[in-house]
């Protein structure tokens, strides 16, 4: 947990440096029409760097005091989390090809059957009924077009 804490505050410091660099290039002082574009972000960046360094100092002191720390992710919990993140990401990638509804149908089926160990009948029923009903609600009733991807328009004939 502390290692993650240190890492995150280092990342914040890095972000702060990027922000400060960008606002300096934009100009962070008083221009012809009042404060320049980089004025506000400059102070945000400086604040972020200072704040994160303070957090870093505190966490580092704790880290040196007692090395044993609570794990960020409890033992054995990383797997189920990855089982959510990875298929969800894959779903979004597939969305670019076949559209969101079809990708979601595949995702629902995949997760329920392989991860959730749900019976075939329920899996098939849910992964067909939910996307179809959401398709009609959003695309047809509210007229909010959802991504169709490259081939989605050809795959859904109605």
């Amino acid at each position, binding site marked *: 947990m502390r290692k993650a804490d240190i890492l995150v505050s280092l990342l914040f410091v890095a972000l702060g440096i990027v*922000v400060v660099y960008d606002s300096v290039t934009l100009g962070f002082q008083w221009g012809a029409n009042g*404060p320049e574009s980089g004025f506000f972000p400059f102070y945000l960046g400086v604040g972020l760097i200072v704040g994160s360094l*303070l*957090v870093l100092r505190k966490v580092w002191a704790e880290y040196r005091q007692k090395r044993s720390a609570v794990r960020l992710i409890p033992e054995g919990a990383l797997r189920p989390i990855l089982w959510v993140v990875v298929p969800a990401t894959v779903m979004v990638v597939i969305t670019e090809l076949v559209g969101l509804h079809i990708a979601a149908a595949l*995702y629902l089926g995949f997760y329920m059957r392989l991860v959730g160990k*749900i019976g075939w009948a329920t899996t098939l029923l849910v992964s067909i009924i939910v996307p179809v009903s959401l398709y009609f609600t959003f695309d047809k009733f509210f007229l909010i077009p*959802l991504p169709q991807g490259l081939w989605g328009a050809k795959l859904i004939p109605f």
Partner: protein
Amino acid sequence: MIEDFNNLVMGLGIALQTYNIVIAVVGLILGIIVGVLPGLGGANGVAILIPVVVTMPATTGVILLSSIYWGALYGGSITSILFNIPGEPWSVATTFDGYPMAKAGKAGKALVLAFFSHGAGGLLGIVLLTFFAPVIAEIALKFGPAEIFTVMMLTFSAFVGLSGKSPLKTVIAILFGFILAAIGMDIVSGQLRMTFGSVALMGGFNFVVAVIGLFGLGEIFLTVEEGLKVEGIVARVGLKDVLEGLKEIIRYPKALIMGALVGCWMGLKPGGATPASFMAYGFIKQSSANKDEFGKGAPAGIIAPESAAHGAGTSATLPMITLGIPGSPTMAVIMGGLMIFGLQPGPMLFKEHADFVWGLIASCWVGNLIGLFLVMAFAPLFASVLKIRFSILMPIIVYVCAIGAYAVNNRVIDVYYMLIFGVLGYLFKKLDYPIAPMVLALVLGDMAEQAMRQALIMGQGSPMIFFKPPIALPIMVAALVIFFWPVIAPVKTKLFGKKT
């Protein structure tokens, strides 16, 4: 006063149109379901439906959004009482006494107590809203950019000084939110900031996408990590329970009134509902004659936190609608909905769109009453949502979140952002960086920056404009005191020897 009353009647005329009532009921049902499901909250439910709302007339759309919010407020207590899992953060305190009472076979009564307390807390909040909102809006009309900026400072100071979280990490979360808001086009000069030549970053981050990721996916990761097992108590709410609950609630007027008052007061400040419920619980336990009863199913231990939570939730509408400053992430998203309709929340709203404002206030009355009826009648039905296996619910929630994130701007990249924000939300939760102030900073970022720059131009570069009496000075001083409270409090204790 009489004018307000006339306006309210006019608003009721709008809120009671058949179409608007149907929309309110739909919103409430969705809201209750969202509230019952741990991991899906009001902020998320509202965020996902923003694209749908755009297709409706403004008043109807906002009625839908706020109904989801009322529904989520009610729904959270069902989960905490029957399943011992808080459906929403503000119903954690309810699990202390609600679950033991339900376990002792009085689940129906516990639910009735919770719902009536919600109703009472909400009622006080709405009365406050109805009669004070016009007054505050009138005062706020005198605000210039400097005053608006100081009010925002006060809002964020409250998160730093009063939330009880690590003040340093809260500051970082706020700054991070502001930085995310600054990415993209500079609203004043039109220059591109922090895009580094990337077209995807030019549009900036939409906070609705951030909310869906941070609150929706982030919570799901936490739930998955804990390996959620739901074992609930079967409950039926019969007419006998309702009567018994009513009789019981009258016996604890102190818990009810104090809870509602604490709630309404805390709700005016940002992030109010959750601390309000804990505070009310603590107060009533302290002042009770038999403290041993608490934790074993004391009725007052349900009444106080529940009325506080709903009171806070309702009175949070007040700063949003009068000052344009949302007190909670859910309110921030509702405010985002208003802005999509071209309605800028703030004092001018009362002048320019009176019909809309009063339609919204009236719908608070209507929505809360219908909500009370709905949960009372169908609590067991809503609880049965939790009987669906998590591995069926979870992918559906992810799917619906993806729809919401995409539909905000019709960009697939936003769905990727949602995933990233989900992981970020999980990390933030684990490392104790608060999410609510970050979301608020993301929402208010552009407005805060604009107000600050305008004020500085007016003051010819001198920051003293933020200390200009009569309005800016006291607000700024209050903001600074609250901001440095974590530093001041120990010093004060040392000096006076008393614990604050």
